[in-house]
């Protein structure tokens, strides 16, 4: 027995020693192969960008060294990266409605499951078509292999010879400095930022999700050193879904940020964003089925907040995003949600608001803190809170839908070179939403995940 204990201990030690002895760091392959830079040059920890990586992205995936055009590359260079993540995870939800002898959904209990799994597969292809002409196409699948286009965009850079004027068209990630598409945590409750997707309970607005890639056109600009940057995007109010499913609503997304040189502490950045839009609330129907594209009764919504990226030397940083959200009372009453072909009752023209309907609003914030031991090892902790400030009806409990999420974990990148990326990660996330359990009490869930995140 003693021998087997030592075997386990020795085995663990060996694994960690082997991992620890690799010295090389970092690279996101498609661009790293093109430019010969390690991933750590552009990523604080892959896939999260650092300041230099943000500048590279803002330049249209160009280093601006007059060797960005494909004509300078070896003809065999093919700008493709795939990424997939095999994992083991444990998921737990404390109150799930279950059937009993008394009838369906007459009781509830905690459900906990665990097992091995895979994430979806991403095929990133991006780069330059010519100097100052760039593109990004990302076919992405879920873990069953069903593909969709996550990103499809072309971009013209440095119009009129100025970095202040760049235009992109297609489906793209909004200009979120703290990018959810490059999030370091992947577990069920840690794999997205709540405030990038939050809508109040029973709210019908599916359009104001700043974390989802959107269809539209974006103008952005920046100073040569990227200290100052802005963007303005005009988007279809479709939450990035292709096809004219909804109506004729448009949304604007605007950002501005300024970075400051603070000596040994590093470069600090503060900024603000605003999403202001309108989207249909009701649809013409045929045999009670909404007619695609027939959305009418556009109502407004907005999301705005501040962003801060604060560095305290080379090892510690905090990324902060706040949000104030507001939806029209129509959304608050449940209108707007395109119901996948089935119109909810009253979601047609000529309906009216319930008596006493109010515009719901809320506030949220997250603090993502990183301890960067080295480019190969990063520890992450993120608390996130969302609090309703006004419910759609006075009778709704004021705390209904309030969210608390805590995520902590680490990513260790033992062998990332300028040819491939590889990260061993381990994280735990916990989430509670007020009043959303089947019995109207708080619903709590947790997710434990470990796995290997790799790309080539």
């Amino acid at each position, binding site marked *: 027995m003693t021998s087997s*204990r*030592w075997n*386990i*201990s*020795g085995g*663990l*030690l060996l*694994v*960690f*020693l082997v*991992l*620890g*002895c690799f*010295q*090389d*760091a*970092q*690279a996101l392959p498609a661009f790293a192969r093109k*430019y*010969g*830079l*390690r991933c*750590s*040059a552009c990523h604080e920890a892959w896939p999260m960008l650092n*300041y*230099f990586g943000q*500048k590279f992205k803002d330049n249209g995936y160009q*280093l*601006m*060294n*007059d*060797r960005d055009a494909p004509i300078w590359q070896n003809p065999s260079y093919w700008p493709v990266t795939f990424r997939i993540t095999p994992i083991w995870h444990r998921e737990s939800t404390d109150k799930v409605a279950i059937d009993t002898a008394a009838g369906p959904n007459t009781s509830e209990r905690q459900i906990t499951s665990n097992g091995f799994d895979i994430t979806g597969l991403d095929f990133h292809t991006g780069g330059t078509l010519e100097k100052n002409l760039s593109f990004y196409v990302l076919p992405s699948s879920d873990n069953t292999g069903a593909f969709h286009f996550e990103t499809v965009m072309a971009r013209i850079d440095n119009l009129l010879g100025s970095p202040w004027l760049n235009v992109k068209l297609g489906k793209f990630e909004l200009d979120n400095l703290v990018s959810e598409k490059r999030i370091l945590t992947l577990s069920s409750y840690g794999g997205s930022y709540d405030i990038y997707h939050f809508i109040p309970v029973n709210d019908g607005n599916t359009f104001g999700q700043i974390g989802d890639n959107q269809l539209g056109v974006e103008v952005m600009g920046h100073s*040569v*050193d*990227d200290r100052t940057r802005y963007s303005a995007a005009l988007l279809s109010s479709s939450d990035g879904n292709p096809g004219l499913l909804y109506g004729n609503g448009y949304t604007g997304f605007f950002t501005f940020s300024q970075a400051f*040189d*603070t*000596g*040994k*502490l*590093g*470069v600090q950045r503060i900024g603000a964003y605003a999403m202001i839009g309108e989207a249909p609330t009701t649809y013409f129907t045929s045999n009670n089925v909404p007619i695609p594209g027939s959305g009418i009764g556009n109502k407004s919504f907005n999301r705005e907040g501040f962003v801060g990226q604060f560095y305290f030397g*080379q090892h510690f940083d905090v990324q902060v995003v706040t949000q104030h959200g507001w939806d029209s009372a129509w959304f608050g009453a449940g209108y707007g949600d395109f119901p996948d072909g089935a119109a909810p009752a009253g979601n047609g023209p000529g309906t009216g608001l319930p008596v006493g309907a109010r515009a719901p609003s809320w506030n949220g914030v997250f603090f993502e803190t990183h301890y960067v*031991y*080295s*480019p*190969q*090892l990063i520890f992450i902790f993120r608390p996130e809170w969302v609090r309703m400030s006004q419910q759609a009806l006075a009778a709704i409990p004021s705390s209904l839908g309030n969210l608390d999420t805590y995520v902590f974990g680490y990513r*260790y990148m033992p062998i990332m*070179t*300028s040819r491939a990326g590889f990260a061993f990660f381990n994280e735990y996330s916990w989430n509670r939403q007020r009043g959303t359990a089947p019995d109207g009490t708080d619903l709590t869930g947790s997710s434990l995940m470990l796995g290997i995140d790799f790309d080539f």
Partner: protein
Amino acid sequence: MRTILLRSSLLISTVAVLVFPAISLAQITSVQQQEWLNSPAAVSHVGNITGNAKAGAADYRRYCVGCHGELGDGNGEVAPWLDPKPRDFTLGVFKCRSTPTGTLPTDEDLFNTIARGLVTSNMPQWNTFTKQERADLVAWIKHFSPRWQKEKAGVPIQIPPEPEVTAERIKAGQDVFNRVQCWKCHGVTGQANGPSASTLTDDLNRPILPYNFHEETRFKCGTSDQDLYKIFMTGLDGTPMPSWSDNIKPDEAWDLVFYLRSLQPMPSKEKELAKQLGLKPVNPNAGQ
């Protein structure tokens, strides 16, 4: 007992993961370099900023080591695929200087090179660093070469005030271009196709191309007229581009600056004046 063993092994493993990379990093620097790093000399001075070598190590490892290598010898993991090759810091030889040929650059020269990058190479513009971080990197880069321990940086050359551009000066600049035979490498039209162009090698005997004035808007060592003046008065050490400070007078150097500007692709006063002059490419055989 089992719990204690398991906890102990996890603790030891964690410590190993954290400590081993640090030990390995320490091993790559020689004893001599370590001594210098611990000395008060392991600093850089740029304006009122003092860079500290040890503070630059982490940024060097994150951003620079892939090309320049752990030892600063230009043999990073991607070096075999790069052209031109990354700088070998151990030699203490740098292209972009404000100091006379053969001397060490000033800290400010290195500081500016980091932010400016080197056009037509894989060295990007690292202008995202804070000034302090760049100064720290300069100090760290200096620790790779023993030259910094034995020599002081050269004294920056004096650049006289830039005169006004005139057609006569452009013509005079073309005469200088012809006289000192710039065309042998850069070609009679400045298109990097002179008779010697294909034979050029750097100090490490690696093929190297001359600068193509018709293609580029920026120079290796800057974008301004003063930068261009410095390039041919200090030379690009380590390359076939010599210093012409013994052959060209300061006034003639400005003439050459104006003529070379007229060869570049972007619109400029020099280009316009050259067009008005009807300036033809130099003819090396004229007068024979």
